[in-house]
């Protein structure tokens, strides 16, 4: 084996790589935001909703958690088509990621909601807060603060998993890498660079979440401890 590594062949492609990084960030940011909203609503529905809604959410969560993201992506992509809707690969990719990460978020947030002691509810109720006010101020906010580390890990995994959307030719880093390797025939080098970029991305995303926590959780900023 006398393979000559040649990373220089990739040099002209660095703007493309950068664009791929940017696209991956954009894709995962969108999926994270919408997935968080969907997941939190599902968690609340599962804790407080009527029976039928609880069942619907439970079925959704189980279906997503027990099937691969790749298949979910195909189903969403072809599902839109079979509904006669013309959507771009990227829209389908975001939709599939949201559906996927929403289910995981639901489970994590639910654990958080369950960890809030009943006496907290009672105290808020005795102060005259409405159910919605209590739910928001005394249950949801501290619950999310408590499960924030788990959510962070989940969303880093989501960023990495967004690479799978390259399979329906969504625009992101892995799709860009696929294109570069077929241009340069430097497959191994291309994926080494891609891997390194993802490792950097996962550090950056984790760091961003840590900094964001300092902004939204003043308690953590001041005390530096988990709730």
């Amino acid at each position, binding site marked *: *084996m006398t*393979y000559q590594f040649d990373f220089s062949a990739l040099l002209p492609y660095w703007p493309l790589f950068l664009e791929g990084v940017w696209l991956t960030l954009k894709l995962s940011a969108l999926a994270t935001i919408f997935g968080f909203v969907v997941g939190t609503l599902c968690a609340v529905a599962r804790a407080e909703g009527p029976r039928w809604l609880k069942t619907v959410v439970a079925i959704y969560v189980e279906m997503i958690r*027990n099937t*691969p993201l*790749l298949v979910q992506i195909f189903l969403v992509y072809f599902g839109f088509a079979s509904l006669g809707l013309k959507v771009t690969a990227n829209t389908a990719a975001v939709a599939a990621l949201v559906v996927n990460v929403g289910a995981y978020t639901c489970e994590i947030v639910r654990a958080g909601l369950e960890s809030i002691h009943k006496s907290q509810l009672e105290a808020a109720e005795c102060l005259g807060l409405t159910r919605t006010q209590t739910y928001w101020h005394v249950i949801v906010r501290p619950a999310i603060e408590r499960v924030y580390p788990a959510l962070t890990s989940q969303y880093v995994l989501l960023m990495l998993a967004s690479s799978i959307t390259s*399979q329906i030719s969504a625009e992101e880093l892995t799709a860009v890498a696929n294109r570069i390797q077929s241009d340069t025939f430097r497959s*191994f080098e291309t*994926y080494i660079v891609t*891997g390194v970029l993802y490792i950097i991305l996962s550090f950056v995303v984790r760091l961003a979440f840590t900094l964001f926590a300092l902004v939204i959780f003043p308690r953590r900023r001041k005390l530096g401890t988990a709730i």
Partner: protein
Amino acid sequence: MSLTPVHIEFIATGALWTVGLSAIAFVGGSILGFALALARISPVPFVRRCAGTYIQIVQGTPLLVTLFLFYFGLAVVGFDSLPAIVAAGLGLVIYSSAFLAEIWRGCLESVPKTQWEAAECLALTRWQRMVRVILPQAMRIATAPTVGFLVQIVKNTSLASVVGFVELAQAGKLVNNTIFEPFTVFIVVAAFYFVICYPLSAWSRSLERKLNAGRR
């Protein structure tokens, strides 16, 4: 054209390969992962750091990219006519090892410090202490998350399709290429995955419940 029993049978064969590939990934990942978990709690800082770096690199790379790296990397080092299962198997073993190592390190560390000290006071060797005292306790804690991770492995074997290995997802793609009924085909594929994964998830949950009940 529509889905015929022949197609279903083809997909079912793919499902068997999914199970087989998952088994390879789990067994290989367990052996490597266990070694890594021990390395992560080693008294030697250098060993700890090496294992930690390995885990960070593997966990920071998408499995899809890892699989591409093995696929093209094996060709680079001269094995260019190996069956797809080798690259897929190796990639999944590496992937599983890093995650299993982290899960098990957590379990080992959750055995109370007093247990380690007690074992030390009994003049057990490091090895005896591990095998006789710590492991039995850690394993009890570890079963639920390990079974839970098995579900991740099964689902992630679907990515082996990108290197051309015909497991469940790839079987679905091939069937779809002949009948052009993507939605139907992938619903069937999803159902197969669900049938494999759901019992594992349920088992993991019940193990967790039992463990929590035992602790209370």
